């Protein structure tokens, strides 16, 4: 029952912290952040330890279908449908589990320093809930269970984005994230219907080995991909992620950089055999991934909020991973998921440390020169910066380079995609250097009030930074731990990986140099811009659109037709009533006269021959 215990530990943490929250509230006190944080961190860390044990027990064979399976109970059983509630840990889900629990426990630890006492038990409860749901997502042995995790992380993300519920803007951002994810979730829901109709099963292992008819495979694949675009913030459902930065920064690090947003990659890798049955699907995935990578990299160059830059960069990196899945090499994508989890979590936590030090300032044009006052943050951030740029020997170098290589040589690779990715890598180097320099170098542009309080973060915050910095440095040295039975290489034929390495390092250096030239001495601030205005378009088309359809329904159809029919029938009855009311004069003698006349008429009728009835 090791896997089950592993999944249930964060749930236990959730309940403990929830109980703590309410008991503190009943006593009219604030819960202590240390107690709540320790509960949460221990729950996650114990899960991590179990995950390591489970991973080691998989053995060294490296075969991807080796796994530990635990069946708990029968969830839904109706007709031919039978959904087991069970968990399965194999190489693929093992990596995700390690990342979730490992990075997760570091971020829990970091949060102890970052959060205040106020509402902290609630915060850690949500964070634990998120980890529980995320573990369900990656360890669930059937699609409904994945869906449970899929919606569950959406819920936890909703709760955490809107954690500071004092401001309505945060709530609105949370709502936006939840709703956009719901649109994506529909894809997964419909994909399950298709799977059940044609394959008769929702079990992941059975489904992966099932061969669909081509058009069914295309429909299934596209629906799954729709779900992935929602969760992993790809075109067309990506606009929620920058808004999601309204949540506390550790949340952004855990949910919106390291784990939740990579669940799309998980699902694509998990269902890779089915995805591979339809070239159309693969092409769409690669094209959308490349497009998203480029588009959000461009947008990132125009942002001035430190978290927004990192958010767009996350979307861009996720695009890289999608390309890896789309060209038919999901193992490089998963590898990048892992390294990205390290360095992006590091970058976010570093940013959190900066924000914490500057009492909440997030505008990079109001920072500068923080290298000396925040040395630990600076050095670990440097590791993250080097990793995302892809400088050897940092982890990002291996994974990003792997994707660049695969995009050219893998079964479905092409020159166009490679070119787009290479240009994106250049932009990545540019905007990350811009961020890095504006924050840590040059002259200090802090306001007087802030400058006095600048301080390095406490040890609970810097310790996770150090661990993650180490991981960002060394995480790539062991190569992709998962090997799929990928198809023979097609694409553009053999290209030397060393050539790609040289090209990618050169590109990164060029981007970094440009960023250095442009921003090292410049102080003037730039306005945040969204060059594509997708968000505004969505607001108009879908927000206002729904509003308009709804008000059309309520005003014209409902009020104009249905309610009017009802009123009309009511009025008709009224009219009839009024018509007959005139007979009711209220005079008893009038009624009596009527009665007498009626009796006389009746008697006359009986006597003088209305004999028709009955004969």
């Amino acid at each position: 029952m090791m896997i089950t215990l592993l999944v249930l530990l964060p749930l236990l943490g959730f309940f403990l912290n929830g109980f703590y929250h309410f008991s503190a509230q009943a006593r009219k006190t604030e819960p202590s952040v240390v107690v709540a944080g320790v509960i949460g961190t221990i729950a996650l860390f114990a899960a991590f330890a179990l995950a390591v044990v489970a991973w080691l027990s998989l053995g060294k064979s490296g075969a991807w279908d080796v796994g530990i399976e635990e069946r708990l109970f029968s969830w839904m059983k109706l007709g031919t449908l039978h959904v087991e509630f069970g968990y399965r840990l194999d190489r693929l889900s093992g990596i995700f589990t390690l990342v979730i629990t490992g990075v997760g426990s570091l971020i829990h630890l970091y949060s102890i320093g970052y959060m205040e006492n106020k509402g902290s038990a609630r915060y850690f409860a949500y964070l634990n809930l998120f980890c529980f749901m995320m573990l369900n997502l990656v360890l669930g042995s059937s699609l409904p269970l994945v869906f449970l995790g899929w919606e569950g992380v959406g819920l936890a993300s909703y709760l955490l984005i809107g954690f500071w519920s004092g401001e309505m803007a945060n709530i609105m951002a949370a709502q936006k994230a939840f709703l956009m994810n719901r649109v994506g979730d529909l894809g997964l829901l419909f994909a399950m219907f298709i799977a059940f109709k044609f394959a008769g099963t929702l079990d992941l292992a059975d489904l992966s080995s099932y061969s669909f008819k081509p058009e069914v495979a295309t429909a299934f694949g596209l629906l799954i991909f729709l779900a992935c675009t929602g969760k992993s913030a790809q075109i067309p459902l990506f606009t929620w992620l920058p808004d999601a930065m309204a949540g506390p920064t550790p949340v952004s690090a855990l949910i919106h950089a390291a784990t939740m947003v990579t669940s799309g990659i998980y699902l694509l890798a998990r269902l890779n055999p089915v995805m591979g049955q339809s070239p159309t699907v693969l092409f769409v995935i690669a094209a959308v991934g490349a497009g998203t990578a480029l588009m959000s990299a461009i947008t990132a160059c125009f942002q001035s909020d430190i978290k927004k830059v990192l958010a767009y960069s996350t979307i861009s990196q996720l695009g890289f991973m999608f390309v890896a899945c789309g060209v038919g090499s999901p193992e490089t994508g998963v590898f990048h998921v892992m390294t990205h989890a390290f360095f992006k979590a590091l970058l976010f936590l570093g940013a959190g440390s900066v924000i914490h030090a500057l009492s909440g300032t997030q505008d990079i044009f109001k920072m500068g020169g923080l290298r000396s006052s925040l040395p630990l943050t600076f050095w670990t951030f440097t590791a993250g910066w080097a990793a995302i740029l892809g400088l050897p020997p940092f982890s990002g170098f291996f994974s990003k380079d792997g994707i660049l290589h695969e995009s050219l040589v893998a079964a479905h690779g092409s020159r166009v995609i490679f070119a787009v990715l290479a240009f994106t890598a250049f932009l990545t180097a540019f905007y990350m250097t811009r961020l890095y320099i504006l924050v840590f170098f040059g002259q200090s542009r802090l306001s007087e009030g802030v400058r006095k309080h600048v301080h390095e973060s406490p040890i609970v915050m810097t310790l996770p930074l150090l661990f993650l910095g180490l991981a960002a440095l060394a995480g790539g040295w062991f190569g992709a731990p998962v090997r799929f039975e990928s198809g023979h290489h097609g694409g553009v034929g053999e290209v030397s990986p060393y050539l790609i390495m040289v090209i990618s390092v050169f590109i990164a250096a060029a981007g970094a140099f440009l960023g250095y030239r442009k921003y090292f001495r410049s102080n003037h601030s730039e306005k945040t811009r969204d060059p594509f205005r997708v968000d505004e378009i969505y607001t108009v088309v879908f927000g206002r659109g729904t509003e308009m359809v709804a008000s059309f329904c309520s005003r014209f159809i409902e009020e104009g037709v249905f309610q009017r029919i009802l009123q009309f029938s009511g009025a008709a009855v009224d009219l009839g009533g009024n018509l007959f009311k005139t007979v009711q004069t209220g005079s008893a003698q009038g009624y009596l006269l009527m009665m007498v006349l009626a009796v006389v008429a009746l008697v006359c009728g009986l006597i003088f021959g209305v004999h028709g009835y009955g004969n």
Partner: protein
Amino acid sequence: MEISDSLSFFLTLPLFGMVLSLLIPRGVQRIYAIFASLLFLALTVYEASGILFAGSSELAARLSVEHQLLWLPQLGSRLSLKLDSVSAWFVVLNALTAVIAFSTKGAWYRKNPKLFTSLGFFLLFGLNAAFLSLDLVVFYLAYESVFIPMIFMVGVWGERQKATAVFRFFLMSFLGSILMLVSLFFLLSKQVKSGAGVSSHLSDLVALSSGLEGAEAKLVFLGFFLAFAIKVPLVPFHSWLKDVYNLAPFPATIWMSAILSKLGVYGVIRFVEPLFPQVLGFFQGGLLFLAAVSVIYAALLAYRANHPKELLAYSSISHLGFVMLGVFTLKAQGISSAILLSVGHTLVSALLFFLLSKVEEKKEGLDLLSVHGLSRRYPVLFVALFVAVLASVSLPGTLNFAGEFLVLLNAYPVSAFCTILAGFGAVLGAAYMLKFYQQMGFGTPSSGTSEQVTRGDDLGGFELVLVFVLILFVFYFGFQTSVFLKGN
């Protein structure tokens, strides 16, 4: 005592409760009502548990009992009661709804509480009679009798303009009932003409209706169908609902959304399905479309709705659209899923209206529209509300998810188009429910109106236990759905 005898005793028990409520002093009416309905719930569960958790459909069929008693021989009507896997859940839900409705606090316990409790027990009786009866004449009478306490509740304790609401409710429901009665009499007269003895028992009428053909069968079908479609309601027949839900006092709203609507669902499953299988098959495409349109259209209206009660009213229609989608698959699995979702909807809508009544209790004279900042002042109530909202948007793990998922899964092979159309209701559902909960939970009002939202304590005591048990139930069956489905 034989189970079959105890069934008629069981049926009449609420009438004793009703008489007793007239003897109980005013002050303890609420306690009496809650206690008596809890007792009745326990008895119902005891009576039905064998069938509910039979473990297999064969066992459930063996355990189901039928009890007959000649009643109106002129109409060939027998009082024949049947408790089986179709009716068992509805009977239990009926008792549960009564507990929840009686647990609300408000004007009904200050102004004429005896009338209120006795009406409630009469409603309980009428609904049970309708759910248990296999005889169509008796069913019709019970179906109509439910209407009387409803009218009184809205009329006596409703808000302003209640006369209009009652009138519309009456008009629409009565129209449906009359059509059903005409259809029923048509069937009976056919029976007389054929020379066989008169019997309004379902099984005898099934034998008769299978002989009907063409337009005749369709017209008779429409009579029955319209009555139930208005009761549920399906979309073009829903216009009575908004005003009634809005103006009715909370217990009446709970009764209507939680269980009266299920009377329509039950009627289709129990009577229309076996009576007119061919006609249903003929209209199936249209009916599925109607159900899907109900889901979407009501969701859009809920999105536009300003008043929380109105919003929940429309959301009720939307969710019942899913239920009807499952029913109209005309397959055993689809219908089982529909019953599953019905149970979920009953629990959650009753819970939501109950919590809303708690909110209304606090604001005392303020419009529900101006309620803000619940999260700060009533954290427990607010968390309960949030969990209910989650169940309502059918988050996986809740009973409502299992129901909705299975309904859509079974509807997909029948009509992919309608399933996808209804699926979008899930997104809209999330949109309006979040809007509802955020508006109440957060934010600050423009003027200082919310300062008055301070009356009374947070959820506690019996109410907290009730809410907690309901939520537990929703989650328990959300994960142990197999246990639920075994009896079907």
